[in-house]
């Protein structure tokens, strides 16, 4: 019961704001407020082209959100199954999960996107959004699988024994006892993956999915306002990412409500 809290540090997303970092001049606040102020300033000071750009983008933002949201959901499920496969005593399940992780981590996401959309498109006709979500979640599921495995393994063996001795079977033990606790260890690195995933959704624009980046590129290609368009695109991505990192931090807080253990 006195085991130390294990921190799995896999970070390539924006930093999740720490609870200790509540000061007015925290990095999160500076970035967030700065981005908003800059965005508003640009739109007001030069409505042409900035306001035009901002007006052009909303449906792209929605698509980015959709891809992110569905991919996160599906990646969590894939990650959980993979993580369970990795710790499974069933050798076949274990081998499948391990191989999947190995293969996916060895192929760039961009290549996976092309592969699922164009290469497999010759055989299976999936709509672009579906292809995008599948590719994103298959890729991130592999990374999350490792996080889940580490999270599950971080839970004391005594917890399993206590649950089993009460009569819970393996599955019930996992879902009622282990995962609810593992979630605390899992959330920070998974939150990082969420944010990285959100940023990587910009890659789906190569599938001609009309996401935020593609809408921006369309605007720029027609207006030639490259500097202005990509400035706005960058600011919007930054804002969304910061909001998501805040959300993850709030969720972490919620999970901490029953104290340290």
């Amino acid at each position, binding site marked *: *019961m006195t085991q130390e809290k294990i921190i799995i540090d896999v970070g390539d997303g924006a930093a999740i704001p720490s609870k200790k970092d509540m000061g007015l001049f925290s990095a999160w606040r500076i970035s967030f407020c700065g981005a908003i102020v800059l965005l508003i300033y640009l739109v007001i000071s030069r409505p042409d082209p900035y306001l035009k750009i901002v007006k052009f983008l909303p449906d792209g933002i929605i698509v980015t959100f959709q891809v992110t949201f569905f991919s996160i959901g599906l990646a969590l499920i894939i990650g959980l199954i993979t993580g369970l496969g990795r710790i499974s005593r069933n050798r076949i399940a274990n081998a499948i999960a391990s191989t999947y992780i190995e293969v996916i981590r060895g192929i760039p996401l961009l290549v996976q996107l092309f592969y699922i959309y164009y290469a497999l498109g010759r055989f299976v006709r999936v709509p672009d959004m579906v292809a995008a979500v599948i590719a994103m979640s298959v890729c991130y599921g592999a990374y999350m699988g490792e996080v889940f495995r580490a999270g599950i393994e971080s839970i*004391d063996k*005594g*917890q399993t*024994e*206590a*649950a*089993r*001795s*009460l*009569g*819970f*079977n393996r599955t*019930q033990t996992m879902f*009622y*006892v282990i995962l*609810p*606790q593992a979630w605390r260890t899992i959330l920070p690195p998974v939150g990082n993956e969420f944010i990285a995933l959100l940023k990587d959704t910009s890659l789906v624009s190569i599938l001609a999915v009309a996401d935020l980046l593609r809408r921006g590129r369309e605007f720029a290609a027609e207006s030639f306002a490259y500097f202005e368009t990509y400035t706005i695109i960058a600011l919007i991505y930054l804002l969304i990412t910061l909001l998501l990192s805040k959300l993850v931090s709030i969720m972490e807080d919620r999970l901490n409500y*029953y*104290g*340290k*253990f």
Partner: protein
Amino acid sequence: MENSEPIIRIENVTKRFGHLKAVDNVSLTIKTGEKVVIIGPSGSGKSTLLRTINRLEEITSGRILVDGMDIMDRATDINRVRMEVGMVFQNFNLFPHKTALQNLTMAPVKLKKIPRQEAEKNALRLLKKVNIAEKADVYPTQLSGGQQQRVAIARALAMNPKIMLFDEPTSALDPEMIGEVLDVMKTLALEGMTMIVVTHEMGFAREVADRVIFMDHGAVVEEGTPEHFFKNPTHDRTKLFLSQIL
């Protein structure tokens, strides 16, 4: 002891960990209502033997019958057996993400499909019994070791088991908390619960046990009533052990 039916039969049980024989050809019969205390030096296999009874350790050979069910038989639903066998651990192993009350209600609600209200009522009664009703809504991390262990005992009792296994229940406790846990166990014993206790608390063994078993190197060396055991043990190894511990 009114009822002398054996509720646990351990027949020629051996448990190996690789080359090590943790339990070496042990046979034991425990009757309904009997209180058995198993003592022995660390590494003697006493905890392992205890854990084979609800199959937390799978035996290598032999046979174990609990309430007539062969626990190694494929046809036996081990989870049903475990519902009848409560277990208390050295490290309490309370579920930290649940309150004390929820620790008690979880298994009855999920496994026995007992209505939540009824389960909670029963849980409160049990928490009262282990003198900790006021901490019902507190998370385990906010409880002392002794309090946690009493909740853990209540959690096992919430499933209404026929047998209670105690695996060194006081070894992880600060000395001043040992008494409160032993008191709860004594009450339980007085109510006629079948109990198997692995412990170093000789006072408890002397006061509560119907039978004391001394194990060493995986085997039962000597068994008998507390009077026999503490007054005139026959084996040298028992004598040596008792002289070290008392």
